[in-house]
């Protein structure tokens, strides 16, 4: 592989999965280049885990194809499994085994030599820092440490691709930050990461993001490209941040102004998507404030704006 640095590691072509009469994943086409951090977002039950399971070869696609590291997920699942790591949202560790026993077990499962397991354990202790707790049982670790151990187990065989299904659900903010530092480190070493998450701040850190809504991949690409999408901020509109007293009471007033397409509360400010024809004074009037008390500032959309706008228009499109 001469073009390893730029190669596409994960690609799907209209991959579909149906559970009886529910279409969990509907013709999703995506591709992930090597060493990317691909953030996969979407509401609960939108099909995120289902796609991961298909890509890991434990769930057969109903239609379409998927390839991981150049191998077909339906026909060559076992070959894929040797080269990928998977960390599920439940940190599936053996609670009654110690840290080192958990790692030994996964090392043996992947058929690593005793020497290699020993070396990998040292490297992983350095990477995730569970070394001091080597002899402790997994159930005695706190949530953050359990998650680090789960990550270490998923990495024991030096996988080229790592799938993480909501790795930060239920983890405190410090542990969350530290996990992301680890993920960047891995990405720097050339590991491709496919991460599902609910957190928008995590999405902002990814090199690529995809947003799935009711089984359909609505949008995917680099975060900065998505923010430029015409659908997100249509030509005849602009995005404003309004800083004013009593933002909560101001919200319904702004929404009532004709030409305001969307308004949400953002801390003590309002984010408004408004048509170009509506002048600033019209908004200030609606708030019942003087111009001096209100500050208006044009802003770029956040990823959240992107996803909210797009899933709304998708819902409207489906309803009609």
């Amino acid at each position, binding site marked *: 592989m001469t073009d390893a640095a730029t190669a596409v590691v994960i690609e799907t072509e209209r991959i579909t999965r149906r559970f009886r009469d529910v279409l969990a994943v509907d013709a999703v086409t995506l591709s992930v280049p090597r060493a990317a951090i691909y953030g996969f977002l979407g509401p609960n039950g939108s099909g995120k885990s289902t796609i991961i399971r298909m890509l890991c070869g434990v769930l057969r696609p109903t239609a379409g194809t998927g390839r991981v590291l150049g191998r077909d997920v339906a026909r060559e699942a076992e070959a894929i499994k040797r080269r990928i790591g998977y960390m599920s949202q439940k940190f599936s560790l053996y609670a009654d085994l110690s840290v080192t026993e958990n790692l030994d077990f996964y090392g043996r*499962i992947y058929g690593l030599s005793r020497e290699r397991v020993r070396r990998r354990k040292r490297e992983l202790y350095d990477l995730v820092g569970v070394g001091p707790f080597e002899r402790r049982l997994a159930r005695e670790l706190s949530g953050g440490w359990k998650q680090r151990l789960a990550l270490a187990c998923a990495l024991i065989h030096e996988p080229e691709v790592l799938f993480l299904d909501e790795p930060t659900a239920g983890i405190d903010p410090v542990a969350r930050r530290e996990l992301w530092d680890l993920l960047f480190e891995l990405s720097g070493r050339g590991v491709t990461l496919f991460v599902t998450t609910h957190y928008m701040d995590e999405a902002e850190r990814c090199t690529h993001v995809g947003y799935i809504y009711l089984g359909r991949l609505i949008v995917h690409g680099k975060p900065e490209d998505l923010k430029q999408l015409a659908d997100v901020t249509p030509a005849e509109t602009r995005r404003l941040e309004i800083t004013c007293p009593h933002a909560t009471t101001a919200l319904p007033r702004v929404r009532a102004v004709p030409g305001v397409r969307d308004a949400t509360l953002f801390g003590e400010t309002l984010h408004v998507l408004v048509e170009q024809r509506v002048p600033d004074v019209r908004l200030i009037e609606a708030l019942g404030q003087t111009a001096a008390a209100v500050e208006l500032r044009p802003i770029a959309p956040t990823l959240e704006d992107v996803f909210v706008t797009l899933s709304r228009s998708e819902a409207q499109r489906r309803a009609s």
Partner: protein
Amino acid sequence: MTGFWAILLKEFAHLRREPITLFFALVVPMLQLTIFGYAIQTTIDDIHTVVYDLDQRQDSRELIAAFVNSRKFKVVEEVHDQAAFDHALASGRAKVGVKVPPDYTERLLRGQQATVQVLIDGSDSQVATTALNGAMLLGLNQSLRRGTALAEAVQMAAARDPAGRLALPVEVRPRLLYNPNLRSAHFFVPGLVGIIMQLVTLFLTSFAIVRERELGTLEQLFVTPVGRGGLLLGKLIPYALLGFIETLVVLTVMVFVFRVPICGDLLLLLGTSLLFLFTALGLGLLVSTLAKTQLQAIQFAFMIMLPSILLSGFVLPRAPMPTPIYVITFAIPATYFIEILRGIILRGAGPADLWPQLAGLAVCCTVILTLSVARFRKQLD
């Protein structure tokens, strides 16, 4: 077979960390063995009896003594009026009431038929049947004794023994084979070996797999290159081993504590046990493919255990069962194994005597293992 050793070693590590599993696997069966071996007595003696004797003379007292001497009855109360007699039965203090009429002695002396009323509480059919048979036999013996005395007096006899004494015209000579003392341990303990083996292996194996499913570690394993064979054998062999040790322990206790000797071939016994063990493992595996949670696994396991205990002939004889149920008993592996156990242990039967049961067990084993292994996939669905 990839990952076989990894899984095997891990299962032993679980067993080491959870000695409670070993407790259930080895101590609980001992309790069951004690309960069935000692506590359950199928021979019924000393049925509580109330006596209302209106005659109170030599003959009536002899009659009551005959009841007591049969050891089937135990006089717990003597009453002197009808109300107390009725109350003793209604309250359940006595299961049998014997009422001797005031003219009992006179009638016998006069050569008339004397009637003794015996009331039996029919609620417990086994006790009632024993009391009924005991009372009938007693009446017959009493009548025979009087008849013999009369025949002696008039020098007329229906039959005589070689020594010239009066004898019954027809003599039935029963001889109890295999369990001459009718000890219930001989009947229950060999069957219990089979039930315990199935119970332990069924629960342990189904739990071992369903627990991983519930924890999510099974999904994690599916994502590794572990082979289906390695995963299955690695999970099943530790429990097969445990089940086999279990069998040896239960058999040892049977022979040395309950004094039930093994009359037949020990190797045949152990070989069949192994066959049954694999059947039970297959059942456990089958449960684990059906159940999503440990709670469901318990329910499925009970669903399998219940017919194995009630319909296999372990407690209740199969022959009198209604035809549809009798047919069902052939689909229960324990049915064959319990018959084989009793055959080898009590009657010293060999393969030639037991081939239909051996064939039945082999068929059950093959069907169950094939079905459960086919259902167990390295896929989530």
